């Protein structure tokens, strides 16, 4: 998923006609000061770290300023932060607004009912998880007609909005639905949505774009900048690559089999480190590529668990032996391979001939790799 920083989410909001406070992004203390002195951002203002993690208010990543010097100092302090493991590179400065009430509004997918759902609550400005169910209204939306006028009226009623404010909500929800639909969003969330006079102003923006839809929105492909270099290579090769805290590398094919492999390893005291999911395919070339990628992550031992469906196990085994030879001797690691499926016997023979331990039993092979990781220096 492509999580957008607040300011990027707000750029989308602006494009879809959702009202925002006057604001500007700054990448240095000087830029922050200029944003205020130029009049782009009125004083007093709020200065917010542009990071993807939540809970910024409590973590010192949101500050207030009444003068240009204060804005500069606030930006300087925030830009020096590392917030929940993320370096702060940008701040968003916004003029403070006179908030009458804080609401919550979002559109998300309800997987069970297979429809988008509009979620609203009169208790905005706090984490929605902490709000009681009775204070949250959920409306399933039929994707074909889309968000209907009566559903928007119902949302206004449940939020206690009438007159001009209800009309503002009607427009806002229409915009939000259009954005959700056209931008292929998984989630659009405004929390808080401030009632300011008769109007509604989005004080925060959380937008997540679905990865699988990025082919329709190439502009999002470039902003995924939170990946490590190895993760980036894996993504290009369409291999799912996840870094955990353990020391055993796991290569498997398919999400379910990968998860089951991790479950079994943990049961026998193993600590999975990197895991690579080759996906539903079992292409021998992909096995080689994944293997070389794994070598760069320097695991203590590697467990390869492949079910050969279409590709034959002997083909996979040949690919594996070849890959092992490409790894420089200094970087080599103990390997336990479990390959099952088509031509399983031939595959195991090839591996054993190359000195790679091949155990067909899942339990025994998991135990073998845990032992190997324990012995490895």
């Amino acid at each position, binding site marked *: 998923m492509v999580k957008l920083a607040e300011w990027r989410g707000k750029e989308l909001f602006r494009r879809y006609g959702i009202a925002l406070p006057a604001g500007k992004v700054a990448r240095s203390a000087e830029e922050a000061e200029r944003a205020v002195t130029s009049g782009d951002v009125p004083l007093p203002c709020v200065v917010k770290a542009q990071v993807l993690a939540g809970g910024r208010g409590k973590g010192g990543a949101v500050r207030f300023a009444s003068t240009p010097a204060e804005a500069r100092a606030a930006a300087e302090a925030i830009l020096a932060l590392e917030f929940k493991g993320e370096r702060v590179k940008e701040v968003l400065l916004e003029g403070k607004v006179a908030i009458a009430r804080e609401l919550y509004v979002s559109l998300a997918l309800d997987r069970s009912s*297979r429809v988008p759902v509009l979620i609203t609550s009169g208790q905005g400005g706090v984490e929605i998880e902490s709000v009681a169910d009775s204070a949250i209204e959920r409306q399933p939306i039929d994707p074909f007609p889309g968000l209907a006028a009566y559903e928007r009226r119902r949302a206004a009623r449940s939020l206690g909005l009438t007159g001009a404010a209800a009309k503002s909500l009607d427009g806002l929800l229409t915009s939000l639905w259009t954005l959700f639909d056209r931008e292929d969003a998984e989630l659009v*969330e405004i929390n808080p949505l401030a009632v300011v006079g008769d109007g509604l102003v989005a004080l925060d923006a959380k937008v997540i774009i679905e990865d699988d839809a990025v082919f329709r929105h190439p502009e999002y492909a470039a902003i995924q900048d939170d990946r490590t270099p190895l993760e980036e290579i894996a993504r290009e090769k369409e291999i799912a690559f996840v870094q955990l805290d353990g020391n055993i590398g796991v290569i498997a094919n*398919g999400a*379910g089999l990968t*998860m*089951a492999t991790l479950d079994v390893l943990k049961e026998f005291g193993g600590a999975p480190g990197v895991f690579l999911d080759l996906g539903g395919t079992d292409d021998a070339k992909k096995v080689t590529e994944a293997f070389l990628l794994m070598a760069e992550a320097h695991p203590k031992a590697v467990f390869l668990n492949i079910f050969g469906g279409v590709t034959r196990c002997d083909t996979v085994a040949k690919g594996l032996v070849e890959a092992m030879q490409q790894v420089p001797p200094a970087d080599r690691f103990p390997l336990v391979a479990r390959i099952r499926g*088509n031509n399983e016997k031939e595959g195991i023979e090839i591996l054993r001939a190359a000195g790679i331990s091949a155990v067909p039993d899942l339990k025994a092979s998991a135990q073998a790799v845990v032992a190997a990781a324990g012995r490895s220096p």
Partner: protein
Amino acid sequence: MTILVDAQTRVVVQGITGHQGTVHTRGMKEFGTAVVAGVTPGKAGAEVEGVPVFDSVRDAVAATRANASCIFVPAPFAKDALIEAVDAGIRLCVVVTEHIPFHDMLVMYHYAKGKGARIIGPNCPGIASPGKSKVGIIPNVVFRPGRVGVVSRSGTLTYEIVSGIKEHGLGQSTCLGLGGDPVVGTSFVDALPLFEADPETDVLVLVGEIGGTAEEDAAEYIQHHFTKPVVAYIAGHSAPPGKRMGHAGAIISRGKGTAETKVAALEGAGARVARFPYEIPDLVAGLVAERARR
């Protein structure tokens, strides 16, 4: 009788001239499936694995009376392919294609439902009844005819489990892979009544994963409407919690979606829950023996 597919199933493969389409057409034919047509726009008149290729599903249905579709069309075009199949009168569509945007799948699901068609998938291995028919990509080697039903959200893990059941000397009635995407055409709850009604299924193996609430929904259904014994397995119980789709996603599945909630719900509904895949065959064999004694 079997579930959804049988000897009368006549398959049209959409995207037959692509690599996957070709390979799995061969696999389906070797399984014994009547693959009667292929569709790739602009390639009418060609032949793949002895199967005639047509320009459109409508042409294929007119010429071959195809009544099920297997879709391998790349993700950007999968929605159109599905709509084309449904409009041509196909009522069972197995969508193998992965990475279809869920916004597209929402349209596909509601469109098919409105026309009385069923989607299996997307991002799924499909369905197979050993000795009868297979629509999809489940490897032929794992099967042997029998009386154990399998329904799963996984791909390769399903092959692993089905293969384990076979090695234990048992066989399968129908194996149904639902697909791992957030929005699927057929869920556990949709599949359970089919297995309940199937006289060839004695025991059901349900393979779930962490995330979403499909297993909790299934447990609810099993408790009230499913009379056959169930063995369940949930992959991912060692995964760290908190991998969720933002705050709103957590609200929708509030208090559900973890391995613990799924296992508890399934056990509460009377299912035997395996901790690891290799425990499944023994549990199934135990239930089969119990049933035989009654």
